[in-house]
């Protein structure tokens, strides 16, 4: 596999666009973590392991930005198209991602459900 392609693959993985950031000192709502896992992480891994670019794209907002080592991909459709190209030459198996249970925080005052619907 070419280095360039690998870079793109890494970039695609980098923009796992979740509203999660760490604050080690605060307790995290376990329901939020579970919801994040159920709605995002699990679907993310399934989509990758099924090489399903549309399913990965569906985890982004319509106006999401995907930050890769080679630049930015703007918008769900462009992200989907980018990943579809990647899956033509790379079919991962056992793709896994984890969520640091201490690193889930909400941005802004929105409710958990409202934020998650944005993803």
């Amino acid at each position: 596999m070419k280095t360039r392609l690998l870079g793109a693959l890494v970039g695609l993985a980098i923009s796992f666009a979740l509203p999660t950031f760490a604050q080690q000192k605060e307790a995290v709502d376990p329901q939020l973590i579970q919801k994040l896992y159920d709605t995002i992480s699990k679907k993310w891994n399934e989509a990758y392991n099924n090489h399903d670019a549309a399913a990965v794209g569906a985890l982004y907002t319509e106006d999401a930005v995907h930050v890769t080592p080679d630049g930015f991909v703007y918008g769900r459709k462009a992200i989907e198209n980018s990943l579809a190209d990647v899956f033509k030459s790379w079919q991962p198996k056992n793709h896994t991602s984890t969520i640091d249970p201490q690193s889930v925080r909400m941005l802004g005052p929105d409710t958990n459900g409202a934020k998650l619907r944005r993803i």
Partner: protein
Amino acid sequence: MNTRSVVALLGLAICFTLPTFAQQANTPDPQLRQKLVDAIKKHTDALDKNDATAVAANFTEDGVNVEQGGTTFGRPAIEKLWADRFKQVHFSNNKVTVDEDSPHMTTDGKQMWATGGWSATIQGEKFGPTEIKGYWAVIREGDDWNIRMLCSNVTPPPAPAASPTPSPSNQ
């Protein structure tokens, strides 16, 4: 790079959890954008001075630094990360660009997030100087808009040219 390395990279990269909801039509407040630019300058100045304490001071006390090599939690750990790095690599000519639609505010106005690119010249004991570059996404908060979370990556070097077909002269 072998497959094992790729898997490792992917695994690490997945930890880059970015709250990136792009709004290409966003027109940032000029004053807020200037505050971001000023805050970034403090960061690049600290990097140019290879001053780990000054770099860490740009983060909130509980800030998070996410790189392909892993995640670092809290200002003291971030300071150590950079102190160790500066022992091995000298940084100079640090430059940062901010995407034109950044920064964005969260709905309560307490945090901003932004994206952009970066570049720097690095020099090690046995390598360089060489220019590296990449992209970043940041969340800032507080009166000084310090960094709550910074995710940055490094653009891989260009793929080497394909090996020439062996010939009698180079076999």
